[in-house]
């Protein structure tokens, strides 16, 4: 095998930090000259980082004070890079909010959404377990579909909203995990947004922070938004979304 071919194959080991320090330095130099490897390493590093999802753990609280104290007297290196303009998502939200305000009334669709509540023990336990299994079967089917498309957004303050859509199954699921605790009297509500018009896609229970929603119809929505609304939900969002997942 020739040397040039050989070195490209190190992209995986590099992304996993599986090279020795010397090899790592050598490959870092190679990346600066090889665009194909630079692109591949960017993608494979992003992929490797996902593996850490399995390792989520809250550290001792003293660490926060220690880090913030150290940061307060640590000088930053300067980058000298040009700042990018307004983020695309921000523009989209501004546009949506402005349009929704201007329209005044936005039509509500007949979205059928199923919330699976883990944090509350209510109703008939057996019935609930059965429903969980049915919903879970759909969730699993979507996640296992060959054409599943996954889109994720981080929620400020913690947690994530992820949408998985399978065009072939014409089914979609929303998974929300470890969201910040909603304030008293508020609940998370999901919105499917098409061309700046929001349609409710379901309300979580008061205080609920983790849940799975099955979307019967995604239709032509381009964004899934998350807001905090009074318990029981609102006909229209009462705030700018705190997170948005682009669906396109």
């Amino acid at each position, binding site marked *: 095998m020739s040397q040039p071919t050989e070195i490209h194959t*190190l992209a995986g080991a590099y992304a996993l*930090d599986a090279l020795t320090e010397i090899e790592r330095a050598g490959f870092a130099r190679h990346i600066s000259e090889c665009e194909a490897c630079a692109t591949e390493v*960017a993608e494979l590093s992003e992929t490797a*980082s996902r593996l850490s999802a399995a*390792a989520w753990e809250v550290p001792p609280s003293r660490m926060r004070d220690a880090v913030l104290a150290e940061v307060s007297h640590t000088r930053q290196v300067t980058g000298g890079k040009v700042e990018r303009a307004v983020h695309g998502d921000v523009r989209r939200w501004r546009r949506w909010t402005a349009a929704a305000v201007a329209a005044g009334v936005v039509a509500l669709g007949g979205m059928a959404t199923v919330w699976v509540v883990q944090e509350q023990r209510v109703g008939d336990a057996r019935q609930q377990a059965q429903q969980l299994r049915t919903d879970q079967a759909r969730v699993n089917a979507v996640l296992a579909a060959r054409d599943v498309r996954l889109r994720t957004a981080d929620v400020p303050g913690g947690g994530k909203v992820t949408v998985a859509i399978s065009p072939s199954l014409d089914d979609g699921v929303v998974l929300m995990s470890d969201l910040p605790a909603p304030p008293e009297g508020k609940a998370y509500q999901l919105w499917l947004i098409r061309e700046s018009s929001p349609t409710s896609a379901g*309300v979580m*229970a008061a205080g609920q922070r983790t849940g799975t929603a099955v979307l019967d119809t995604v239709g032509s929505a381009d964004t899934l938004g998350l807001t905090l609304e009074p318990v*029981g939900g609102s006909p229209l969002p009462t705030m700018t979304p705190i997170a948005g997942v682009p669906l396109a």
Partner: protein
Amino acid sequence: MSARAGRGGDPGWREQPTARIAPVDSPPVGPDELLRQVARGDDQAFTALYDAIVPRVYGLARRVLRDPAQAEEVAQEALVEVWRTAARFDPAKGSATSWVLTITHRRAVDRVRAAQAGADRERRVAAASVETPYDDVVEEVTASLEQQQVRRCLKGLTDLQREAITLAYYDGYTYREVAEKLDTALPTIKTRMRDGLIRLRDCLGVSVA
């Protein structure tokens, strides 16, 4: 049953008058934007970023190092490095979350290689388990989607791809050590790490702008 809220909508709130939209708030701020603000010296943005990401940082350090005290040290060092070098973050190369975790992983791996001798590592790995069994349906839906995805996609790899990747990422082995442990030729391990990650990338739907 309140667990089933939302099927077809609740007529109770649909009949309410509409148009209760509040004035435009400040835009949503995710890790990418926070990190850009950190690069400009914004310590409040750093605090917000810390709170958003620290369980991933500490969890990863803990996974690689096992020892809580060492994990705490490494996580702390990594987070201070994030503050110090935030200006080097390039969103064209990936997400802020991945950038922070890459810094963390590299530090954790460097530490584990420096600190631990062979015999010790053998025991450490024997005690480690890559997958947590989830036989309870409620636990299954409670697991974060990312965990579910990662588990599902790891299952889609060949045994050799999966072992090579997990030994390197979760346990900090070099590819040479992995080749030795798996009694497989070096070029094969390199290739399996790469094509395994490529398969994971496609399965997880990872793309970089």
